[in-house]
């Protein structure tokens, strides 16, 4: 692809998608008003912040099933001081669509008192992702058990979840409300969009707009009654766009259960106070730590893969069978050395 004119054209299209030329069109088409951007007043607090995250790495797979390494857990902070990281799940998952209920049911029953889920054929491709989400909810549940009233639990993601797991979210909301714990989901990436002709990135443009309207402050914006589809009404909560730190240009989608609506300014003020670390300016620091402590690195995945291959050999599988199982044909095409 060496055609310069083609590159120029694509660059122009990208500019159309990403640039925000003036605020008028944005305000008009989204229903957002300047006064909707509310400043956040950072305030210290004595409680603990729990940050829940999960990680998923494919170890091997074949056409009908896949083996994934899945990890979930949470990091706990008091103020700026890390207290501990708790891993609640760290195991291999053999994701066979025909074994779905065996995978999900025990957890649903045990932790959320729910009956089994029934997957549709179309859900099966993302089985391991759903399983990781389930384990993240188990981690939230565990964090809730250790949290005290006034504490904050952050979840890396969104509460606009897979339909069959909405019951889990509802249970978690109910427990959090009962315990007086603030529960928020903070998404690093979001598919929210606006615009009538082309799909424009809503979170980024809202971040740019907020930076112009409230340049020297952390702020938040509620999406209630705005012309943006954030899954409102599907999960009993409200979505916000938040800039946690005035020195950062990044804004994030934040989902909160409806019981928190009246307290959002206070809760976000507490979070803003701990979203200004040098390590990851503008992002709740506890989530940064949770991500780093819980992530499955490439090396870790490779090590598990090696060990699994050893076990397969011990079980009598031939190298050819293992190659078929674990080899990626792309590696052959790329002429990469394998095992």
């Amino acid at each position: 692809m060496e055609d310069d004119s083609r590159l120029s054209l694509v660059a122009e299209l990208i500019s159309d998608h990403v640039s925000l030329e003036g605020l008028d069109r944005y305000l008009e088409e989204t229903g957002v008003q300047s006064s909707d951007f509310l400043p956040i007043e950072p305030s210290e607090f004595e409680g603990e912040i729990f940050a829940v995250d999960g990680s998923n790495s494919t170890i091997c797979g074949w056409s009908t099933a896949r083996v994934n390494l899945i990890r979930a857990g949470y990091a706990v902070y008091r103020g700026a001081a890390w207290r501990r990281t708790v891993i609640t799940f760290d195991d291999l998952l053999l994701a066979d669509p025909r074994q779905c209920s065996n995978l999900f049911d025990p957890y649903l029953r045990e932790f959320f008192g729910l009956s089994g889920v029934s997957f549709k054929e179309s859900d099966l491709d993302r089985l391991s992702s759903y399983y990781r989400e389930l384990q993240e909810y188990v981690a939230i549940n565990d964090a809730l058990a250790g949290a005290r009233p006034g504490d904050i639990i952050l979840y890396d993601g969104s509460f606009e979840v897979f339909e069959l797991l909405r019951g889990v979210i509802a249970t978690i909301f109910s427990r959090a409300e009962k315990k007086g714990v603030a529960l928020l989901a903070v998404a690093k990436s979001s598919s929210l969009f606006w615009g009538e002709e082309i799909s424009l990135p809503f979170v980024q443009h809202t971040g740019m707009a907020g930076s112009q309207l409230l340049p020297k402050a952390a702020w938040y914006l509620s999406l209630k009654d705005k012309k943006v589809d954030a899954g409102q009404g599907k999960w009993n909560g409200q979505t916000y766009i938040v800039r946690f730190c005035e020195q950062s240009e990044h804004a994030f989608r934040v989902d909160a259960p409806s019981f928190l609506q009246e307290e959002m300014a206070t809760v976000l003020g507490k979070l803003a106070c701990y979203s200004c670390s040098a390590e990851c300016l503008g992002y709740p620091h506890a989530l940064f730590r949770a991500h780093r402590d819980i992530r499955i690195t490439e090396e870790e995945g490779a090590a598990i893969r090696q060990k699994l291959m050893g076990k397969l050999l011990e079980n009598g599988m031939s190298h050819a069978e293992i190659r078929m199982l674990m080899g990626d044909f792309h590696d052959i095409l790329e002429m990469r050395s394998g095992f």
Partner: protein
Amino acid sequence: MSREKRVKKKVAPTDEGRAAPEREGLLKRKVIEMGETTYKIVSRSVTEYHFTIPFNLDDDERVEVGQIFSIKDGGLTFLARVLNIEHSSNYDGHWDTTIKGTNFFDSDQIFNRVIAEPLGCINKSSEFKKSRTLPTKFAPVVRAETEQFKFLSQVMGDIEIGYLRNGSRLVEEIPVALHSEAMDHHMGVFATTGMGKSNFMKVFAASCMRLSARGESKFGLLIVDPHGEYLKGKSSSKSTIKGLTHLKRYREGLACYSTSKQNASDPGVEELAISENEILPEDIALLYEWSPPQRDALDAISRVLDPQSWLEEIQLPEGMARMLQEGFKDSTINVLIRRIKNELGKNPYIRKRSSLGNILANLQKGKVVLVDIPRMSDRSELFLLSVISRYILDEYKKEEHEGDESRKNCLITIEEAQRVLGAGSNTARFESIAREGRKFGVGLCAITQQPKLIDKQLLSQFNTLVVMGLGDRNDRIQLEESAKQDLSSMDTEIQTLEPGEAVISTLKIPFSVPVRIHRYEDYLRRLDKEDKQESLITRGGFKPFLD
């Protein structure tokens, strides 16, 4: 079991057929807490250990190059010496130069990585061995304490020189002592000015005097002192530096000779005399640069003139005539005579009588023999040292043939040794002692500020090295390339040695030992107070450095 059932069981081990799983069964919590991330072995190999420490330790907790750490791992306790300390973190890339602000939250993610050299390991029977394995990953690391160093007491020798040093901290319970048996394998003392060479030599000599006075000496030590500081020390308005004669308790272990009439008037100090007939043409040879005809004439003297009286003879007309008959030009002979007269004039200790017999006898008794030659020129000092050491080597050779087992070995000290052991120097005598002295029980103690100027092959003959701080990289390289023990890993430590600190590599001690040399004046006080029968190296708690 059918394939289906097996699959079911493996996919979901908490499946039906069992009672509803306990909460603990499903939730396998693992909690990671503060304090678990440092002082653990993280890598790397049998030849190099890496471990992490907090990056912001208090001053008294700081880790230093040269410090020794211990790693208890099962039945083994590994010892490792810090070679270097690096900044490190769990973050990749240039995070530390691109961060916004200084409001760090996770100080546990930033740390220092300590690179340590394995020294060996101690097994359950308290035996120390070189390690052929490495500690288990994440094995805990702690600062080595007295307990871990105790095995060193068992391998130390009899010539105490200081205390074990762990970084900057003294381990007073572990005195460091060289082995008398290693002294005929030659010793090198290397340090730049002001690092404590003279202090070391006096401490070393004091310990030798003590051994001699107690009848435990295994060798005699010859020190030729051109600076006049070993005999009675030096006094100034600021400080008083003591000499070897101040060690009254063990004075009988010292025999002193001086070219200074004033010093020789002190009781116990004999005026040095060298007999003319003990001087050979080759002693004169090393005093000057000679032209080829002059060198030929010098070489011919022993053949043409009487070896016993050549010095007198050549100054007489008959002697001159005999040399001319051999075909040498009178101008050549005149140069020889003029230079010989010069030396005889400058060195009034050259007489009819000689002290050499006594010097030899004292050395063979295992005493410290101090030859005090204050204000003597560099050239005259070399001349005198050449005469004495030749005499000693010749006598030891003779006695080796005669099989006298009662005589002790001998260690000859040479200050500024690069003058006589340098590549291309014309002092083959000292080279021959370095190369073959050991066969006859004669060792060399070479003291120099510039080991880079000493011949590499000769340096490789030195089995005991006392390194006291060398700023010049070439000096360190020369030592590293020539030393019997591997010193290359200690480059940083040698660079950072403080005055009075040393690294000692010697036979019978399994690794290069960091030492704080006793301050002579303090050591003197201690020796003067001790019970003569008391075993010195079992004492502890002595503070060698006073404010």
